[in-house]
């Protein structure tokens, strides 16, 4: 039976199915990862574009 399974997996018609299974597993792990992120960290990350480290205008050195 195991041999038949491997033989079947080697058949390129099944590549799509195998790939979808890979994607679904990958997707579930991804969801678990994102859900496990700490809310504080996520909030900090989502604010990153708002803090670009630019100095106030009077601090800018125009060189």
């Amino acid at each position, binding site marked *: 039976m195991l041999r038949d399974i491997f033989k079947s997996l080697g058949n*390129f*018609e099944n590549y799509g199915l195998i790939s979808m299974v890979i*994607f679904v597993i990958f997707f579930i792990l*991804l969801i678990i990862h994102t859900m496990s992120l700490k809310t504080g960290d*996520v909030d900090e*990350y989502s604010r990153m*574009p708002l803090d*670009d480290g*630019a100095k106030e205008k009077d601090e800018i050195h125009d060189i």
Partner: protein
Amino acid sequence: MENQIFYYDNKIVKNFAYATLFWGVIGMVVGLLLALQFIWPALSFGIPYTTFGRIRPIHTNAVIFAFVGNGMFTGIYYSLQRLCKARMFSDLLSKINFWGWQLIIVFAALTFACGITTGKEYAELEWPIDILVAVIWIVFGWNMIGTIIKRRTQHIYVAIWFYIATFVTIAVLHVTNSLAIPVGLFKSYPIYAGVQDALVQWWYGHNAVAFFLTTPFLGLMYYFLPKAANRPVYSYRLSIVHFWALIFLYIWAGPHHLLYSALPGWAQSLGVVFSVMLIAPSWGGMVNGLLTLRGAWDRVREDPVLKFMVVAVTAYGMSTFEGPMMSTKTVNAISHFTDWTVGHAHIGALGWNGFLTFAVLYYLIPRIFQTQLYSRKVANLHFWIGTLGIIFYAVPLYWGAITQASMWKEFTADGFLKYPNFLETVTQLKPMYAARAIGGSLYIVGIILGVYNLVLTIKAGKFLPEEGASAPALAKAAGKRGSGEGIHRWLERRPVQFSIVALLAILIGGIIEIVPLYLIKTNIPTIASVKPYTPLELQGRDIYVREGCYTCHSQQVRPFRSETERYGEYAKAGEYVYDHPFQWGSKRNGPDLSREGVVNGPQYRPNSWHYNHMMDPQRLNQQSIMPAYSWLISDDLNITNTAKKIRVMQFLGVPYPPAYDSKANDDLMVQATGIANDLKSQGIQVEPGKEIIAMIAYLQRLGKDVHSANLPTASVIRK
């Protein structure tokens, strides 16, 4: 940790912004000329450099790689420095990236106008320029990764993930699709042929859309939208899922460009399934973008930057719904080869890329010039004219596409094609083409207003080449995962490892789809009657590629009764095995040509007809929109490279007899003289050594091999 003071490089941002505006105008004006040629073919001006087939690649490449490409670099160079709280890794690399990219664009425009092309859509550049593209792209990636490594933030923000995916994927796509054997400095043959070439090309073509026009702009969306709205991203968790799901799925979708073609069914099915699945991450991204504006919608009414962004993100949502829909076989049977595809592409290009690019420019130019936007009113006018332009552009094309597809498929009660003359289905569309040109003109007027507004903004401001910033230095983190640190959390701070994982994610789809086509013989059944092109036909084929005939004519009959009745036998994988490159085309402004040479076939025309048609298409059909190719009649065929071409073909596996290169030109002249004599018998005097003879030889060869074979007919297959 001590606060460090550093300076963002705004010069490189400014240079790319200027280039974006310049090439945007050029690319779209060329597009308008193309649109007008559909109404007045005389606008080809009777010279080779301005015919549709040559300037269409100039338009597509100018808009994609020059306008959108420079816009992408503008946004990346601006946002990457600020997200990393670091100056770019190397000013020299930035400059090489900028000037190298502009040089590539100039080379592209010149070579395409001269007919120097590989004949593969969106990958038309010949091999020396392809190498230059690869070098400049590596310079960009090197500079980007270097900047990320020297960042002053622990976490790498999600926008940068999209930039990384753009870099690694475009590198893989470009190199893989550009593999070719040179015949000379300006001519090469791809290593792939026929079905394999088609799959690699559309794997590249579709993912150029995905990873050049989509992922970098999603990165820009994730930076500039929160910035302009002054609100954090709606859901960072969703952005993580968006990123990984999108890059994993996108790479599979290429075969949806080849539905009902000779591509094996399993590959077509993969393309369909993954295209439909793509809706989920795409819309996840769109929703994440729009919801970032929660609580800030009142500002959309006032702020032109947000207006442009909202329409851009909405256009992204429309395109990413429409794309999967067009990827289903039912819709594709109608939409493929029609203007529906053109409309779809322009919703993405004008709405998503064009509007987001201008949102970015309206946002950052006043900032780097330390001033306010010159006129909000003009920006709003740009917005409304541009939006109307997109609608006037796309709606007539959708209308025209469904009209034309219906006419192609309509049969009389007696079972005959109702519109057997392809031209009837084209003339019907002329009002739609006129409306499309009006839409395009409106969009260009909007762009000119935008340029005017930005130029006056620049004049009113004072450029800040070095923008000061400060941030604490990043504490050196351990290379290994810390205790309790998940794999992804570790990856999120390791740019090189992150790039490798992103590369693996995009490679899976490509490998699974492409490799079996090479390893498993049954994917492309050979047909014994299919022989290599004769030297004269090979030269003629190269002229066909040079003139960009594939931009208007397909060579791929789909297995529909409406197509087999109109053109002849449907396409078989085995008939293209010597086609380096494949020339299936993606749009039918004229009829399919793959059965053109089948004597007694529905498309057959004598040599004299082809001669007169090339000389003056309107003399044969007053309504024809095909440009004249009179130079083929006056120009001598260059046969000095025939032997080299044969040798390269032999190297690629085309079974010419040993040492055939030395006598190829003898055979060429024999065949050419035969055609010239036939024309003479029809009262047409032309020397055998002219280009038109080679072109006629090629056209008369098309489809002959399959029709001389004892193959099951379409009707048998359908049972």
